[in-house]
């Protein structure tokens, strides 16, 4: 009589067939949730710092105005004159009624240019603004 060792006859490998599906799902989630950076920033700026700041949750509402160290103003993809802001921002507001204008202004700027931009925005009735700042630690 022959003795045979008792062995469980289950397979020993882990089923990995669904692993790619899971990873692809993760991948798709990331692709859907992220917004890609659209514009090249042509001006140099350093943001000021502040403590009591808020987050803008909905990125799709935001439109940016950059003001660089040298006082140049950028909207969308190009440098614009102060007088052009009203027209551009008004067309943005028509397309997106509750647009938030995020002002990314160099911290060394003077308030003169900031007030000028604000006046232009008021004329274009883009009233929700946000002074972009970094978090002061």
């Amino acid at each position, binding site marked *: 009589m022959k003795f045979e060792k008792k062995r469980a006859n289950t397979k020993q490998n882990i089923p*990995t*067939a669904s*692993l*790619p599906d899971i*990873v*692809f799902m*993760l*991948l798709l989630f*990331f*692709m859907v949730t*992220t917004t*890609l*950076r659209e514009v090249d920033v042509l001006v140099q700026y350093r943001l*000021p*710092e*502040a*403590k*009591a*700041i*808020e*987050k*803008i949750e909905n*990125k799709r509402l*935001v439109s940016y105005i950059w003001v660089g160290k040298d006082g140049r103003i950028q909207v969308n993809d190009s440098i614009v004159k102060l007088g052009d802001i009203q027209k551009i921002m008004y067309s943005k507001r028509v397309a997106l009624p509750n647009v*938030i204008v*995020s002002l990314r*202004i*160099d*911290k*060394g*700027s*003077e*308030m*003169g240019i*900031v*007030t000028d931009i*604000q*006046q232009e*925005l*008021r*004329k274009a*009735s*883009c*009233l*929700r*603004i*946000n*002074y*972009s*700042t*970094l*978090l*002061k630690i």
Partner: protein
Amino acid sequence: MVQIKKRKLPEAEIPTSSMADISFLLLLFFLVSTVIDVDTGIGLVLPEYVPPEQQQFVPLSKDRLAALLINENGDVLLNNELISIPQISKTLKPRIESKIDLPANKKLVVSVKTDRKTSYNLFIQALDQVKQAYFDVRNEYALKHFGKRLIDIDDRSEEMKELKDKIPITISIAEPETVKK
């Protein structure tokens, strides 16, 4: 009887073991190449534009108004008292607190006015202090009445509504002066 053995076909299988690796690589690429920066900043709503000839003078009682003036040297005047920027929030807090129970048309209005030559950085620091004062008061109110910190309260809840009702943030950016040389 002769049994004809059927020839066993080899099992057809696609090698999928590397699929996971490939998809992980793609995932990593996306994780690395995307910028997840949440926009942070100080929010504000500008007043509607009214042409100068249609502007109306609305009288505002002295105890409702906190006038904040910043000149180009960085000196700060709060209701004609010279203070430094870090003191703003401390000075404003009691004034905001004293008006919590008053009706909406009696709340404090903070008016910020700067020179054309004032540095933007100073303006932001001052605005930050004003917001800080409001947030502190809201936080204390929330702790006292709801037993929650301000950051734990949902933005759409009834509690937040009450907070916004009791302690509205009214910051007015003063109309720039046309000619001043």
